């Protein structure tokens, strides 16, 4: 079994500019934030972000000039804060192209890539202006002649997914909601996992049914305690409302956003952050109620 453990900076160094990059999680939950911050620190450019519903991750990558396109069904902070200011400004200024999807067509595109076909028929969009705006075409069922929308395959160059537990080979467990993460793993050419806990994979053999990401599909494994912060991570931590509130306030203007970025991302290398939060993580009690009867806990 191959040891795929690497540092966050080495893993993210493999992400090429102008790549299609899928981000796991959904809105403010289990986003791969540590990796997102590292993408900013490494000054990546031209990324086409793929996500069903993004929030902090998509927003800050648009604000930092890393993204040039966003393929998503939704970008916003729900009722927690409202619209995504950085994404919105970048699109309105023509700096970022909004490739509008419905969440289901993002899924359909990832399914097509997973299944090695050029498109996926999808029962959606039948009463929508989105296909015309985005150039989605219809295809006729060769049996009945019925027309159905075809979503082109979305093959991410890299999928970045934050998980609860991974072993060195990349076998991984996600507790609670899966979101589209497993589908992103199968669709992508390369897969970077960031994990709250690195575990001895032999312990997974007692309940292999819980391990929904198979190691052979994974390229890099990074130990990233609290790697979803300020987003929630099921059973471990909730959204950090203080951090998010500061961010959202500072994101309203370019100057204050620059200051935020400098303080919280550019001048805060993750390896230092990580050491701090790792110590913190050591003292974390896993929430038994939320995680259920998890047999094998790391560390």
């Amino acid at each position, binding site marked *: 079994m191959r040891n795929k453990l690497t540092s966050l900076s080495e893993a993210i160094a493999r992400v090429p500019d102008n790549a299609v990059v899928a981000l796991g999680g959904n809105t403010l939950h289990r986003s791969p934030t540590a990796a997102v911050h590292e993408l900013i620190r490494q000054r990546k450019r031209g990324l086409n972000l793929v996500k*069903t519903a993004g929030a902090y991750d998509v927003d800050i990558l648009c604000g930092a000039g890393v993204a040039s396109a966003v393929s998503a069904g*939704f970008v916003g902070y729900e009722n927690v804060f409202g619209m995504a200011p950085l994404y919105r400004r970048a699109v309105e200024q023509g700096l970022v192209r909004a490739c509008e999807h419905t*969440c289901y067509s993002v899924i359909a595109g990832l399914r097509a890539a997973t299944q090695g076909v050029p498109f996926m028929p999808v029962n959606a969009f039948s009463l929508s*202006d989105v296909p015309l705006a985005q150039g989605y075409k219809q295809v006729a069922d060769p049996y009945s002649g019925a027309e159905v929308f075809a979503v082109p395959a979305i093959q991410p160059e890299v999928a970045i997914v934050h998980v609860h537990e991974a072993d060195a080979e990349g076998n991984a467990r996600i507790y*609670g909601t899966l979101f589209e993460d497993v589908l992103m793993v199968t669709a992508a050419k390369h897969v970077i996992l960031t994990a709250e806990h690195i575990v001895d994979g032999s312990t997974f053999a007692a309940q292999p049914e819980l391990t929904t990401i198979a190691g052979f599909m994974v390229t890099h494994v990074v130990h990233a305690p609290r790697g979803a912060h300020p987003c929630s991570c099921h059973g471990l931590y909730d959204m950090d409302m203080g951090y998010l509130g500061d961010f959202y306030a500072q994101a309203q203007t370019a100057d204050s956003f620059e200051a935020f970025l400098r303080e919280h991302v550019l001048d805060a290398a993750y390896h230092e952050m990580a050491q701090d939060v790792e110590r913190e993580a050591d003292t974390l009690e896993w929430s038994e109620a939320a995680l259920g009867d998890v047999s094998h806990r790391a560390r």
Partner: protein
Amino acid sequence: MEAVLFSPDILMPIVMARLLRNGETVFHGVASPLPMVAILLAKALRAPDLIYLNITGSTDPTPAALPRSTVDPALFAGTRSRVTLADLFDLSARGKLDTAFLSGVQIDRAGNINMSLIPGPDGDPHHPKVRLPGGAGSAAIMPTAKRTLLWRTKHDPRVFVERVAFRTTGGNVDRVVTPLCVFRRVAGLLQVETIHPGVTPAQLQAATGWPLSVSASTPRTPEPSEAELAALDAVDPQRARLIEF
């Protein structure tokens, strides 16, 4: 004989809950505190076998406290199984989702919604005047769910427009619940079904961007019962729903 006024944060979830049926599958997506409360309320009041589905992939969750985000892990608590969001879209696509709650930044007379953008002068959707969050799952769910219930906590002529500036989706809209009234879609157009207590026909017309058929004889939305009010307090004691107002 003007009724006691009920604030929309009380009246709306109660009215939304009344629209739900025992045994049906009901889904809400992102940014849906009122549907979350309405579904839990319906289950508590008289639809115990209603099947509550949401983006977390839980079924019939029993949250300890109601979250700000309706994708929050709190909505996974108590579930006995785990499905994915893709599974729920599939459910709708194959015609097995009974009811979906959706909303729109704009909602028009035909029940179409706009969650996408306000076009700029050149009309190019890639150079919008205002980029909105996007329709999330609505362009998939709304045309395929057996029925859609829309809700919006703001009722003014900028929201309720004759025609949306961009049609994120249309679909099988059944009712629209607002702070002022309940619309029902009849022959493809929204008609006022009931006006909420304390709202005059003139107020409603002034708040709506198309000509309404309303008069003093338009039925009134039935007032919340004691049982409904008590159940609402029990389901949402912290008033998580206020985040929508």
